[in-house]
């Protein structure tokens, strides 16, 4: 009886492995681009097809607003976004996630992909500034970065590798202010959510996040003298299957509809 079970089991296992192997080989993405798809310039804009843009969380409002304009001008375009911390997105792209464009909140995460040969030459498309976010009414009377170190103030920051968090730590170190955050969040939006929900008293995000934060948030300025150079690079991902639309999006981010949406949201132009 044991031998009969074994003889049944072996072909069964083989069958399963064969089926799974067949499925796997058709999914493996080719690392070379298949060339631009036929761009029928049927509308004023030449963007069509599916476009997956991986963008830093701080770009959420601006890019969502840009989507309305872009899809109105390009009816054949199916634009989807993936917003997260830039380090998360860079890791996903390294794991072959299907991105066509990568917009990072700092050059460091973009450089990781440049070094790995996964993106084309990046260009800077926006600049931003840090801003302290507190609950509306500023109950803890926070007036500047130094107040973040006050006892009784619950501060959350972004995790290591998340651009906003790294920039904040850089600024605090240069000002010699020691802040012990109560939590390290995965991106600016979840850090802001901790303040909105009342769990944290303050966090440091970008001025664009404070602007998009709604009535429960107010901002406290970080002086220009303390601001780090915050530049956002954008690049076409080499493994893209829609190179034309990806390039068009990048161009639009530098000077086009997307750039207009960025300015409206409070970003500074790339200069």
């Amino acid at each position, binding site marked *: 009886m044991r031998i009969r079970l074994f003889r049944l089991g072996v072909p069964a296992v083989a069958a399963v492995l064969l089926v799974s192997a067949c499925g796997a080989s058709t999914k493996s993405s080719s690392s070379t681009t298949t060339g631009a798809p036929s761009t029928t310039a049927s509308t004023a804009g030449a963007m069509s097809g599916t476009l997956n843009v991986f963008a830093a969380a701080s770009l959420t409002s601006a890019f969502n607003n840009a989507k309305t304009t872009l899809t109105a001008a390009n009816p054949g375009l199916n634009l989807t976004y993936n917003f997260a911390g830039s380090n998360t997105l860079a890791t996903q792209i390294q794991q072959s996630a299907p991105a066509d464009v990568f917009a990072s909140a700092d050059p460091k995460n973009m450089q990781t992909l440049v070094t790995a040969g996964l993106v084309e030459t990046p260009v800077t498309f926006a600049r931003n500034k840090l801003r302290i976010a507190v609950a509306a009414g500023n109950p803890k009377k926070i007036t500047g970065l130094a107040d973040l170190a006050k006892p009784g103030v619950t501060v959350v920051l972004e995790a290591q590798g998340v651009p906003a968090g790294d920039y904040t730590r850089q600024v605090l170190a240069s000002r010699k202010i020691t802040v012990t955050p109560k939590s390290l969040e995965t991106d600016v939006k979840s850090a802001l959510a901790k303040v909105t*929900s009342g769990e944290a008293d303050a966090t440091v995000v970008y001025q664009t996040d404070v602007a998009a934060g709604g009535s429960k948030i107010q901002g406290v300025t970080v002086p220009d003298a303390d601001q780090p150079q915050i530049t956002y690079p954008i690049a076409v991902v080499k493994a893209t299957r829609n190179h034309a639309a990806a390039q068009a999006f990048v161009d639009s981010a530098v000077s086009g509809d997307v750039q207009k949406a960025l300015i409206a949201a409070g970003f500074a132009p790339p200069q």
Partner: protein
Amino acid sequence: MRNRLPAGLAPAVLAVGALAIVVLPLVGLVQRAPWSTLGRDLRAHDAFTALRLSVVTSLGALGVSVLFGVPLAWVLARRVFPGRALVRALVTLPMVLPPVVGGIALLYAFGRQGFAGRILYDVTGWRFVFNTSGAILAETFVAMPFLIVTAESAFRSMDRRAEEAAATLGARPAYRFRRVTLPAVAPALAAGGALTWARALGEFGATITFAGNFSGTTQTTPLLVYLDIESGNEATALALSLVLLAVSLVVLVGLRDRWIGKV
């Protein structure tokens, strides 16, 4: 007499399919693991802190679950009262509720602005969020049902005659519980406790949503695994995953079918 095999290949193939779904990911984990640098990876940035914190919070969750869960299980098993079925359903709910939903619910109850948390904070200054107690609470929320269910089943199915005999001999309720009831259900409680502890150890969604993420305070091992994988620290994430996998295997092998039904 020899048993005959069930007719047809179908059950065997499907069974192997089920096995593949479970086993292949584990194989994937084991074969990618950085075996040669395991020790170093586990001592690397925050990994050991996360492991130590996980042990503390999971044992804390087990302790709270035993303290509050066993009496509740006893009441559910031995007392008939209106709404008993509803109570039983409610305490089992966290087992099927998505953990992140549990985390959000905990926020609205025990967060600083939560209806209960607000009172706690105003009166005592105590807060669960961003505190190790919050991690323990989140883990208790998801894991305690395992203990309650196992304990209730054990209380129901134990032989009551020993208790009755002890009662007729003059033993008081507390003495009976301690010397007769508990020893009788001890094996089942141990099994339930092991499951509860393992579930608490592996909790992620409720912890990161409710308690927060900070090394040494709330960053338990599953949280660190998630963050490391997100930010490309693959080696540490894999090393920690292996530890969690090994612990889970030890618990299940140690239980040896006991939790599936036999008491």
